[in-house]
Structures are given as structure tokens and as C-alpha cells.
């Protein structure tokens, strides 16, 4: 079984974000970048599927500039066998990036192609499904359970009020949600081994697409709280505000 994990490099969720002078990108100075947390579920799924099958190959595929290689090495340190770095600048239009990824994945013999359900920086939630569409393959998004047996996949997805079960033939594309697994930490030996694993670099040029970023803005700062009184005496005022102002009751 040959499994691809498509990886995105995103700012650490604890990083303090500053918007660059251009107003359309973030200032990356001093920002720590990590694998997209949802992609870590995809990495863990690839590793455990391979371990369960007792063989196969796992490949991490990432689109981006030089810096994405450090993020790819985290996946290699966790145990992924090799990397394919599609070297180029990602487009703000998810479809253009999906085209580049699909171009690489097509004909490469992957049985399972895994993505995070979305990247936590732009929350586009498009790439996995678009790649599946471009490759004309089945796709299940936001899976919380993924089993492979006899060339078929069965998955579970958390939907409103319940769990949806679905099945499809392989090859197929899956995007991974929290709950699918508990991603392992890269071991120290894994970190040392990652340097020696093959990482192939292929230049790519995503198209401009039809989406441009007009402006980025930070969310407004949360307003200070208001103390309406103390003890039982404050309850009527609080109830009134919750009903008329916050409108939560």
C-alpha cells in the first residue's frame, strides 16, 4: 500500500501574528512554523495504516518554498519514509494548489491520499476535496475513523447529531479530523534519521487563479467585561442584560 500525506506549513497556533507592511500576508519574522495540526492526524493515519498492513510506503508531499522542508522533516521524524517537495509559491486560490498536487499524485500509484480537514491558518477546507475531484477519485472529508481492508475503505464522519458511516473503493482521498487518532511525537532517533531520508525537490509553478487576498486584519480585541453588581442583588440586572443585550436567554 502506497500512501501520500499532503502537508501544509502553518504558524504555530500559539504564535503572535503580525501583518506585514503589504497588508496581505503575515510577517514571518520570529514566527515558529509547525505542521498543520490536522495534517498530523493524516501523518499518524498513514503510519498506522502502514504498520497495520505490515508494509508499504508512506510519502509526505508539500507545496511551498525552502522553509517547508523543515516542516516535512517533522513528518519524516515521525516515521514517514520519504518526501516530495513541490517547490513553488502557493497560490491564494486553493484550486491552483490542488491542480499542482493532483498533477504530482496522478499516476504515482498512491492507494490512499491523506490531507488534514483544513489548514488552521486560512481554513480554506478545499484542497483535499478538489484534488479528489481533479483525479476523479472518491473522497471522504473530515473522517474520524478510517479502516482499510481488501482494497476498500470504510470511514466515519461526525455529522450533525450523529456519526455517518461511508465506504469506497481505493484509490481514494481522505481529509482527517480530530478524533481520528492521537499523533505520535517524533522520537529522538526519528529526528536523527529524518536527515538521511530521501527528499526529492520538484519545481512547480501554481497558476495565479481567480482569488487574490485584498487585505488581512487582526480580529478586534475583546472588549473589557462589565461588573453589574455583587451577590444576589445583581441577579435581576444580569438576567436583563443576558436577555436583552447578549440575547443568550
Amino acid at each position, binding site marked *: 500500500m502506497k500512501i501520500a500525506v499532503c502537508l501544509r506549513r502553518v504558524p504555530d497556533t*500559539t504564535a503572535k501574528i503580525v501583518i506585514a507592511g503589504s497588508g496581505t500576508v503575515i510577517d514571518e519574522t*520570529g514566527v515558529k512554523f509547525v505542521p498543520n495540526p490536522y495534517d498530523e492526524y493524516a501523518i499518524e493515519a498513514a503510519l498506522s495504516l502502514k504498520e497495520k498492513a505490515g508494509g508499504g510506503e508512506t510519502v509526505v508531499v508539500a507545496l511551498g518554498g525552502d522553509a517547508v522542508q*523543515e516542516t516535512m*522533516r*517533522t513528518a519524516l*521524524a515521525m516515521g514517514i519514509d520519504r518526501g516530495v517537495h513541490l517547490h513553488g509559491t502557493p497560490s491564494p486560490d486553493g484550486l491552483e494548489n490542488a491542480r499542482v498536487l493532483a498533477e504530482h499524485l496522478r499516476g504515482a500509484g498512491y492507494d490512499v491520499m491523506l490531507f488534514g480537514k483544513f489548514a488552521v491558518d486560512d481554513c480554506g477546507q478545499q484542497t483535499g476535496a478538489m484534488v479528489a475531484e481533479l483525479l476523479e477519485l472518491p473522497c471522504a472529508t473530515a473522517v474520524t475513523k478510517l479502516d482499510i481492508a481488501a482494497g476498500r475503505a470504510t470511514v466515519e464522519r461526525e455529522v450533525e447529531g450523529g456519526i455517518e458511516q461511508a465506504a469506497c473503493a481505493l484509490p481514494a482521498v481522505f481529509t482527517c479530523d480530530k478524533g481520528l487518532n492521537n499523533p505520535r*511525537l*517524533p*522520537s*529522538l*532517533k526519528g*529526528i*536523527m534519521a*529524518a*536527515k538521511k531520508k530521501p527528499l526529492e525537490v520538484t519545481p512547480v509553478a501554481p497558476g495565479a487563479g481567480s482569488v487574490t487576498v485584498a487585505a488581512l486584519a487582526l480580529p478586534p480585541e475583546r472588549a473589557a467585561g462589565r461588573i453589574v453588581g455583587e451577590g444576589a442583588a445583581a441577579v435581576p440586572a444580569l438576567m436583563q442584560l443576558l436577555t436583552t443585550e447578549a440575547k443568550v436567554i
Partner: protein
Amino acid sequence: MAGSAEYTGVDFYDVDGLLSEEERAVRDTVRSWVDEQLMPVIGECYIEGRFPRQLIPGMAELGLFGANLPEEYGCAGLNNVAYGLIMQELERGDSGIRSFASVQGALVMYPIFTFGSDEQKKHWLPRLAAGTDIGCFGLTEPDFGSNPGGMITTARETADGWLLNGVKMWITNGSQATVAIIWAKTGDINDVNSIRGFIVPASTPGYTGKDQKGKLSLRASDTSEIHLQDVHLPKNAILPKSGGIKSPLMCLTQARYGIAWGAVGAAMACYDEARRYAISRIMFGKPIGQTQIQQQRLADMLTEVTKAQLLVLQLGRLKDQGKATPARVSLAKRNNVSAACDIAREARRLLGANGILVEYHSMRHLANLESVYTYEGTHDMHSLILGQEITGLGAF
């Protein structure tokens, strides 16, 4: 609770920029492990006076034991800076957990690696790296702490091996160890050159390890007394390349190196907790961090953390070049542990009454660091080591 918010380290001087990608990756993996596995249980373990034994397999799986020893023995083969960063991150959690890893790696695996035969290395190192064997290091005795050369534990050669007798004290991991490195005099009781190391399986008749009770420090770590009463060992139990007091002191230099890093971790944890608390704790209608007295505390803490970080990093680079002399290691152990003690104490004070609770970490670190200040060469002994280095005159 202020201390529970996500910990992101302390790096005022872009020390990260001086680390390689692998060194940062190692640091991050251990930091995540501490967040996920150690922080949720450490308070309870400390109160109960219990080492979190259930964490040993996970630590081994990550490769935390003897991580700077070669891969051929099942170790990670890291450089000394990456090894130091492991110690830093473990001690950010708790000095007792770092002590466990220090003993296993620097005081048990290192002497087997350095003074052991090929058979001893092949047998013991992979098992210790995998955590299937737990080691301890028996040098200190009830009456010989700072002066280990005075030890009265003896190893007498017999027809078919060795006979050990003596008592060791203040032995980390002593009661849970499956194997001990015991230092004993093979010749005259006044002859420090006759000190040799022995590999003693804890199952050997006559060997007993018993926990020392009543500790107010390092409560999440086992500290034990080891009794050796007519312990018969085969001939091949001796570490063939050990010889004289210098051998155990070489081990201590390794462990002290890790402690110098570990103290930085404890100091970072306390500073981080104090900073968060100072910003969020409102008194007299404003954050206490808006008062000059707390700002001075925080400025002093950050300054000392930053100095300590730079000190150990350069020491690590020197160690990788084979230039970390015992005196250089002494300087870093002495400075960093002392600074960490001060930082932990000031952090606890900044936290006010909350600072005495186990939900916050500074007082636990403060209590732990009093042991760290005292063990592996007391602060005062390191003053004398440096004094001798400076003047050429021994004042022991």
C-alpha cells in the same frame, strides 16, 4: 490557573537562532512530551511522594535515556547541546524527572560505555536505553559526601570473583533500580587509586535498596540507601577500564553538565509562571505586573535566565569539541543552579499566597532546587573547584 496556559519557553536573546534544526526538533518533542505526559500528573506525584513510574516506557520510546551515546547501542546519538536541551525540558517539568534521566544516562550508561568491556556494553546499554533495566549510581556514603575518596565500601577479590561490603546513601532510583553501578575500594582503605566500579544486579543476594523517607524536596523521585552485605559478584562484574577516584568524578562531570541545563528549564518554568501571574493578577485595581517591585523581580529573573541559557549553550558547544573541562562544567552548574534557586524563590513570592499551592509550580521547583544546589557537588564545592582552577591552590 495561571500555570496551566500553554508553555512556549523563554527566549529573549533569540537563542533559538543559535540552535540547529535537529536541536530545536529535539527540544520541541521533549517539551510536548512534558506537556502531555508529565504536567498532568506531577503535582499529585509530588504530594504523594511517588516517582511517576508509568512514564518510563514512554521516555524510553522517545529515546531520552543516554541520548548522547551512539546508535549502535540503541541510543539516539545526539550531540551534547541536544542532550542538554532534553535535560532543560525535563526539568521544566520537575527536577526529579530530570534526575531520573540524568542518573540513567550520565551515571549508569556513561560509565558502562566509558569503562565497560564490549560484552558489558552490548548487554547493558540497549536494555538501559529501552528502560527495561533501571540503573542507579552508588558513590556517596553516609559519612562521605563531598569527599567521596574517603569511602569505606570495599571490594575484595575472591577465588572466583569479588565480595562487596558497605553502605551507600542518597542514591537516586536506588530502590527501583534493577542494576547498580557501585564504587568500592579494591585495595587499602586509604588508597583512592584502588577505587573501581562494579555492575551489580539488584537481584544479587546481600544487596538491598530502601527508600529514604521524610524528604521535603525531590518528592517525585526515589532517593535510597543501599546496603551491600557480603555481595558476591563474578569476576566480570568489574568495569575493566575504571581506575581511581577519577572514574566516578568523570561520571559526575557528565551529570553536572546535564544539571546545568536542567536548572535553566526549572528557571524558565518559574519565570514563565511569574510573568503570566503578574499580568493577570489584579490588586489595587491594576495588574501586579504594573508595580515597580514586580517589574524589578521579573527583570532580574529574565536577565538571569538569559545569561544561564547562553552559558550552557557555549558549554555544550565546547563539550562537542572535547573542551568542556570539569572546571568549566563546575562554573555552569554552580551559576545556573544558584540562579534557578533565586528565580524560583522570587517567583514564589510574586505569586503571593497562591504560590504555596501545588497547582502552581514555583514552590515545587524551589524545594527541588535546594537538592539540586546540594547534590552533584554542592554549590560550595564548586566554588572550591573553581578556586583551585583560578589559583592552582587546593582548599578542600
